[in-house]
Structure formats: structure tokens, C-alpha cells
């Protein structure tokens, strides 16, 4: 049986599109959010650096949503992805 690789659509916020050639959406393979981020590091390292620090942790003020749910309300970076799922990257609300 050939292994089927899930591909997820990653939505890139406008302020980070300069790190990935202006793309609004990127198709990234991976069965979990972590695998998508690992692939993103390979495909678009500058965008990955904007989302994750050098330990691989998602930056404190970045929100990752699988469809409409924040990954912290799911299984974190271990959240499994299925066909048709999307990941949206959003900066957290802040002021001052």
C-alpha cells in the first residue's frame, strides 16, 4: 500500500508574506501540526523562524489554528491533520 501523505493549507498573515515570496497560502505535507512546521522549516525557513523560535517552540505571541480551533484547545503540536484541514497563523492580540 502506498503511504498517503496529508497536505495541509497553511494560511499566511499579510505581515509574514514577505518571508515566503508573498504567498498567501502554502500547501505543506504532514500528518500533524508539528510535522507541518518541520516541513515548513525546510521549505520556507524564514517564515518558520517568524513562527517558531530556535528551540522549535511556537513563539509566545503567535496563534496557530487548525480550521477554527486554536491548537492549544486541541492536542497542541501533536494535533492530527486530515484531508481538507487548514492551519491559520495569526499574531495574538496585544496593545501598548
Amino acid at each position, binding site marked *: 500500500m502506498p503511504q498517503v501523505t496529508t497536505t495541509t493549507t497553511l494560511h499566511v498573515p499579510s505581515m509574514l508574506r514577505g518571508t515566503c515570496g508573498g504567498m498567501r497560502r502554502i500547501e505543506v505535507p504532514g500528518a500533524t501540526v508539528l510535522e507541518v512546521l518541520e516541513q515548513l522549516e525546510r521549505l520556507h525557513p524564514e517564515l518558520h523562524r*517568524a513562527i517558531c523560535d530556535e528551540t*522549535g*517552540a511556537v*513563539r509566545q505571541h*503567535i496563534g496557530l489554528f487548525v480550521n477554527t480551533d486554536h491548537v492549544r484547545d486541541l492536542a497542541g503540536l501533536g494535533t492530527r491533520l486530515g484531508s481538507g484541514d487548514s492551519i491559520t497563523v495569526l*499574531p495574538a492580540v496585544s496593545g501598548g
Partner: protein
Amino acid sequence: MPERVVLSIGTKKGLFVAESSKPRRSFRLRGPFGPGVSVYSTLVDERSGRLYASSCNPFFGMKVLVSSNGGSSFKETRSAPAFPKDDGRALRNIWSLEPGNGRKELWAGVEPAALFRSDDGGDSWDKVPGISDHDHAHKWQPGNGGLCMHTIVRDGDRVHLGISTGGHYLSEDGGRTFSASNRGIGAGFVPDPYPEFGQCVHKIARHPAAPGRLYIQNHGGWADRPGIGVLRSDDYGHSWRSIASGLPSDFGFPIVVHPHDPDTIYVVPLEGATRTCPGGVPAVWRSDSAGASWKKLTKGFPKKQSYFTVLRDGLDIDEAKSPALYLGTTTGQLWIGRDGGEQWECQFDSLPPINVVKVGMI
């Protein structure tokens, strides 16, 4: 011959550049560059005429900005300092940028406290393990501003580092190895008044022509341990003694040395509790005797109701024959102290909160 005086002003909302001809009658302001992102370290590199600034975004990470046209525009260097993946630490801020020996060599002190070096003008960076992986590193504790390496003072093979809170570290082999060198530097927040390391050093300064004499603005303001806030070393930083007598407070952040006299220094005493000017009356204090006595400089400053805070890199001095000081406040004022601080005037009144002011002549 340098023709322009350039100020790089790092604020909570980005970098500003102010420029004047040598008489320094007025400054033209440009910016903000890296808008919306706090800037804690800048460098006017008089070797190359380049300007550098950190731009550390809590959302999207660390950047180093560089300008090759005197601060008219900035671009990002190819990379910023970053810990190796297996290190386990993640960079949170860049607190210090200093020139190295080579024309394109730069040093960066960062948070969490570590040192990085670049040989190509900031396009690539290597961690300096002698201090970044020092046996003491896991025992250093963050102060109110974070666990930061904020001061790099170099003198040939001698490298002095200021870490808050870690204290003063000294290398005498070009930065290969470092030792804590805190004899005489007190701490008010641990049981041992003079620990081997862990002091909350705020800033270190020295004159390049007198490398054996150094000054520290330490975290003073302790009623039970008076006088530990302002210190001098006459032996290349191996031992330190108080020079705080005569000041209204030994708490403060910056300390600056006159460009033409190693015995003339400037501090900005603040009340320890509020970190603002004592009594709401701003003043810079100058010693012309390496700390033996002090003179209060207030001419031009408000006489009352002005609670300035000046951070560790909020004071600098140019190298003109009659030098001017530049003082930035967290309430967004940029003051110029002409004639070595004898006469002050507010050049910019409403900038964002100022973290750092550096001056260069290019």
C-alpha cells in the same frame, strides 16, 4: 574628517535617526525604522559609517537592521544571532552591539545572557562559548529587564562583559575564556553582600586611553548596603571600590566617560523605589576626579515635577572638542547637554519611550 553627528535612538516603537552638521545647532529626525518594534541596542559604526540596530519582535523574532547610507534607509542583515537548535535556549532580545577588531567584526550581547560574534557585518553569527556556556550561566537570574548581557567593553585581548544579573565577567584572552571579576561589587538582594557573581551590574564604561580604569553603575539604592551603586576599578576590572559618596542616590542605570578625560564621568542618579529623578528634579552628575567628588548639572532642565527615567543606554557623549551629551528618557524626550553637560536643551519632546541613544561622527 567626520562631517556629521549622527544619533541612533532606539525606542519602544522603532528606531529613529537624528543628524546634524558638526556645530550641532539642530538635528533632523528620520524614522521610525522597524516601526512598532522595540529597539534596545544600536551602533553608529565609525569604522564604516554603517548604522546597526536590533529589532526584536516578540511576535516574529529577532532581527538586526543595517544602514549603509547614514541612516536614510535600513535593511535586515541576512541573519540575527540565534542559539543552536540543541542549546535549548531561545533568543529574546539583543541588548548590545559593539564593533570588533576586524572592519566587519561585530559583537552582540543578548537575552538570555550570551555573547555572539559576527565577522561579516552581521550577516552570520556564532555563539561565543567561553561566556555563553560558562559554568555560571545556569545560575544567573533575570533582573527586572530580563537576563541580559548589556555591556561589551573591549580593549585588545581584554573583554569586559556586564550581565544583569550575573555581574562583571572578564576575559584576558580575546574572549576565549571568561572569569567572574566582581571583587568589591556588592549586591543588595542576596544574603552575601559581595557574592562571587550574580550582581545586577547596570553599565560599565571606560576611556580607551586608560583601559585600566573602569567604572560601573551597579544596582544600588539599598538602605542597608549603601554606596554599592557607583564603583571604580584601577586594575583592569580585577577589583572595585565605591565612588558613590556625594551623590543623592547610588541607584541609576547609565555611566559615561568623557571622551578626552578618563577621570571625568557622568551618571544620572535615580530614586531606587521609583527609578525617577530624586524629587522630580532632573539632573546629570559629573565627576572630574574619577569619582572623588561630584557636581550637579541642571542648567536647562525643568526645575520641578519632572520624573525622568533614563535607562542603561539612555546616555551617550560625542567626541567633539567640546563634547555634548545626549540623554533619552522613557517619557520620550531627547536632551542635549552642551559644553560637557553644562547647558541642557530638549531637542525632541515627544518620541516614543527611549531605550537607547548612541552618537557617532561619520
